């Protein structure tokens, strides 16, 4: 065990992945000598050489197109998009190419070895182009997996699982958490399961669900509610696609209530998909409507970030709304 922040845990996972397989590569804008703008790839070029860890030109569609080709060839590319806000030039290469590569060829070819890493989410005074949470766009694309960790331990285990998974995985890293805190992380190799939610706190009155940096906010709200005598079951979804319907449905059958919170805007966010599925699966067990606590349907603000975000107080109010329905 060692104390690591999320960046160190990610760097450690990349180091393990590159160490175990000569065909594993890390690349993206400023990823090489400099080690990435957040330093996630720090030291990897020195250790593994310029052929395996390098800068690319400033062209996101090129980075992912290049990565698709590498993966189809049999290499194991780990491509970094500097900010999730800048993933959209690569949308075609992700949605029309990576996601459909195996299907469209009848499994003659695949890009299962591809992993895309991108710093994501708000809370760093980054305004509308350094704060977005675009997971829902990719969740609408069969063929992709989408994974979001909540802390350093989760980040290392889930990233190693993503790199080794035989499907293209988008790994969104909540950048607000990069250096926010440290946690105990095993030095050795380990993996955490993709597609499996984790119940962090058992409870009986309401199920609270989130992923990534919202987990911290959610726990704060659960603690506030506990002072009012409300027993919250807190769950980290961890994988947006595929997502663990069973764990969430079992919890809601027990508690009768569900609250989902996300940083992204409300309309057509992934919380909406969860709400629809759970009302289908648990209709007769629900005591109140599924609550969604989300960003507003606006671009991500700068000066008024505090008012915009789904903070613990908004969640706390929604918990009470649900309980008192």
């Amino acid at each position, binding site marked *: 065990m060692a104390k690591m922040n999320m960046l160190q845990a990610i760097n450690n996972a990349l180091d393990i992945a590159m160490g175990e397989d000569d*065909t594993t*590569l890390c690349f993206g804008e400023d990823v090489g*000598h400099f080690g990435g703008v957040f330093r996630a790839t720090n030291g990897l070029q020195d250790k593994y050489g310029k*052929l*395996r860890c*390098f800068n*690319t*030109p400033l*062209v996101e*569609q*090129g980075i*992912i*197109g*290049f*990565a*698709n*080709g*590498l*993966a*189809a*060839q*049999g*290499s194991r*590319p780990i491509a970094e998009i500097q900010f999730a806000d800048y993933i959209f*030039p690569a949308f*075609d*290469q992700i949605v*029309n*190419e990576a996601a*459909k590569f*195996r*299907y*469209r*060829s*009848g*499994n*003659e*070819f*695949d890009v*299962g070895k591809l992993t895309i890493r991108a710093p994501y989410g708000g809370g760093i005074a980054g305004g509308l182009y350094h704060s977005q949470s675009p997971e829902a766009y990719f969740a609408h694309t*069969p*063929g992709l*997996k989408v994974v979001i960790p909540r802390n350093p331990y989760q980040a290392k285990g889930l990233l190693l699982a993503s790199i080794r998974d*035989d*499907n293209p995985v988008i790994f969104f890293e909540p950048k607000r958490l990069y250096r926010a805190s440290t946690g105990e992380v095993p030095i050795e190799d380990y993996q955490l399961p993709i*597609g499996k939610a984790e119940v962090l706190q058992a409870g009986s009155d309401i199920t609270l669900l989130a992923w990534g940096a919202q987990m911290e906010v959610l726990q704060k709200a659960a603690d506030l509610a506990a002072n009012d005598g409300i027993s919250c079951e807190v769950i980290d979804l961890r994988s947006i696609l*595929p997502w663990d*319907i*069973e764990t969430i449905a079992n919890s809601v059958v027990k508690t009768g209530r569900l609250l989902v919170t996300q940083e992204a805007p409300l309309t057509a966010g992934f919380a909406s998909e969860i709400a629809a599925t759970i009302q289908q699966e648990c209709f007769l067990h629900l005591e109140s409507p599924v609550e969604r606590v989300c960003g507003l349907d606006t671009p991500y603000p700068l000066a008024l970030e505090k008012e915009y975000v789904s903070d613990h107080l908004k969640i706390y109010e929604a918990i009470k709304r649900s309980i008192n329905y």
Partner: protein
Amino acid sequence: MSSELYNDGPVVHKPTFIDGTSIEIPELKILKQDGSTYEGAELPDMDETLALKVYKTLAFHRVLDERMVASQRQGRLSFYMAALGEEAASVGGAAGLKPQDMIMSQYREQGALMFRGFSLENFMNQMFSNEKDLGKGRQMPIHYGSSELNYMTISSPLGTQIPQATGYAYGQKLQGLDEVTLCYFGEGAASEGDFHAGLNMAAVQEAPVIFFCRNNGYAISTPSDEQFRGNGIASRGVGYGIKTLRIDGNDILAVIKATQIARKYALKENAPVLIEAMSYRLGAHSTSDDPSGYRTREEEAKWQANDPILRMKNWLLAQNWWDEEQEKALFEKLREKILAAVKVSEKISKPHIDTLITDVYDVPSIQLKAQLEQVKVHVNKYPEAYPFTAGKF
């Protein structure tokens, strides 16, 4: 690591534009239409066996296109894309490579796959999207692919294969393989952002990839002067720092020669090469297109006189490697074989209903399995509405 990459020109003290006229782009021509070669021309490395294989592939291509366009007109096939008049670019490209080299195509390069030995049955099964299609009946006709033959499955979105080819070639280099990647695209697709991305990255990342542009004058109905204003696609190669060749795309010897040279260079120098093959799409863009709405018969006639297959035939005759009797027998046999294959493939069953959910992931998720079960229950309830699959699972 350096930012000093510039070949400095003369220093001037008043603004002085430069433009395309600063660069003259030579066009490689080896074979004349009458079958003779230009004096002093360097011929490709090609013996009689290879030459006959190339020619038979061209003939197969021509006849398959004819028959399949006719089948589409008869309503037997939903869609087809012929390569009439520009078959030399795809067949010659494949002939200039080694079998282990990856070919990543746009959609009009079936000739390369024919040269690699994709069987007539495989072509047919793909076009009729039946259960024997390697692609499991998931893509429209002509979206072929074969991992065994190192021919990447075609994707409809234009230009996406260009940066992918760079990545593929980079992987080949990294693993020290005696392999390159050849990437085909049209002059229209070269307007896509992926073209810029792929070429620039290939130069910077030093990938052994051959970019092969088929400049056939049209992107569906849009002529090339409404596509770009530079000196073709070749001029762009220079801008990216890529060794570039412009060739006569209807000259099979020039195509093979250029590809052989490009392969050698790419492998030796770990660097990309751009080939711009000048040609003309004599046929329609696809069976859904009618060129009479956007170009003249006179223009077409000019290019009909440049038929690449006739040009190669004339050369073979001059070598005494071919005669008119063989010619007649070959084309007759091909027409028979293809017609017979259509009749077989169009009767083969559609893929099994389970292939609805396979290959989306390596293993179908719980959700996908549940969705498939729902479809099966529904099909069983209304079997008349789903004749391809009802009662077959």
